[in-house]
């Protein structure tokens, strides 16, 4: 129980610090909207074929914009050597990691939920038809992105080219989950339910999330303390 209380303390701390400056969330949101617009130029938003694949495009937007939030995750501990303070405290590395992951998850999900209606308007897709299922896919995909991204943030915190390394580390690992999310979102956002041919992706995304959350919780102490 103490573990979850500590996780919550870290989550609240990250959220409070972020919401006071709003640096990451503002740039992430702006970036998402800009890419959405650029995709509208690249692919004709009125064509039916674009509408069918728009779910895939949406996840590219989410992946790129999410990176901006994830980059800040452990980087915000660098000024003043705050990371030392966290590591020295009687809090397990897993609690620090999970607290940050939850905070990142909430921030990235917020950006996505704001971008979603904009996307729906630009591409004229009936995204509200299957909203509960769509929300489930968003949650599963975002949690996967958050877990892998937070681990990458911890790994790259002291590296010079951090902003470049984090996406390069995160995206290849994310390929299965992103692929699944794209397939499912493409179906759901056009108003079709998830059929038996696509339900495998859903199970795979759950599996991905469980596996990587477990492995991260076990190994994050090694990353932080070495």
């Amino acid at each position, binding site marked *: 129980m103490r573990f979850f209380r500590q996780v919550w303390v870290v989550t609240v*701390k990250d959220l409070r610090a972020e919401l006071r400056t709003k640096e990451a969330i503002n740039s992430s949101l702006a970036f998402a909207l800009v890419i959405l617009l650029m995709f509208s130029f690249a692919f004709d938003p009125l064509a039916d074929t674009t509408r069918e694949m728009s779910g895939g495009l949406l996840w590219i937007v989410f992946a790129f914009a999410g990176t901006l939030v994830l980059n800040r995750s452990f980087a915000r501990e660098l000024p*003043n*050597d705050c990371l*030392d303070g*966290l590591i*020295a405290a*009687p809090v397990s590395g897993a609690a620090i990691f999970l607290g940050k992951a939850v905070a990142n998850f909430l921030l990235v999900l917020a950006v996505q939920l704001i971008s979603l209606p904009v996307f729906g308007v630009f591409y004229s897709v009936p995204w509200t038809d299957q909203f509960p299922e769509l929300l489930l896919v968003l949650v599963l995909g975002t949690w996967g992105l958050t877990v892998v991204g937070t681990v990458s943030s911890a790994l790259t915190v002291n590296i010079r080219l951090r902003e470049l390394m984090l996406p390069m580390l995160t995206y290849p690992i994310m390929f299965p989950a992103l692929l699944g999310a794209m397939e499912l979102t493409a179906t759901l956002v056009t108003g079709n339910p998830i059929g038996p041919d696509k339900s495998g992706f859903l199970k795979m995304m759950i599996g991905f999330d469980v596996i990587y959350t477990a492995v991260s919780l076990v190994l994050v102490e090694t990353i932080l*303390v070495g």
Partner: protein
Amino acid sequence: MDAVAVDGVWKFYGDYPALRDIRLEAAAGTCLALIGRNGAGKTTLLRIVAGFSRPGRGQVRIFGGQPRDTETRRKLGFIGHGISVYDELSALENLTLYGKLYGLPDPRRAAREWLERTGLARVADGLVREFSRGMRQRLAVARAFLHEPQVLLLDEPFTALDDKAIAVLQRLLREALASGKTVVMSTHQLREALELATHVALLTRGQVAFHGPSTPEMVADPGYVYARYGEG
């Protein structure tokens, strides 16, 4: 049982030994001043004692326990080169955060109390990024003392402190030592350190060149230890 016992510690960066067979003890209630040139390994050693990195060989015991044990971490207070407080939060929020992380029963009250003791009560709700340098240092001291640690590990604590902050820190350290707490501090400021130190250890190129009680000669002429045991 010694408060801090360093037993045959080696630290390797790749194959290069930054610390070689370090054997040191600090009994409870004593103040050990760790002195040495830049690059001698003082910071490396302190960080190993604090549990930030693992020794390649040997071990550290704090009251018999490992530095990374949860119980041991509760007994340790560390001030490093950075202040370890968040710029975007207020002084009170920072201390309350650490109070919660250390599992204090009433984090807010403890936070307020330590803001008083370091003279920061007036600016409790101010954001740390607006603080002056001296105020930031005092907040770092408050953070380290907040959970009443049994062992204080300080890495060059007097460097870049203003007069007020030095006075606060010396007062708090004297009170801590008087109540039986243990202090290990690395320092260049020999004078301030030797006023408080009961024992001195000189580190030269990763090895202990001298370790013993502080003598009147040392307090009178801080360079004495370097001249006698160091490389000059």
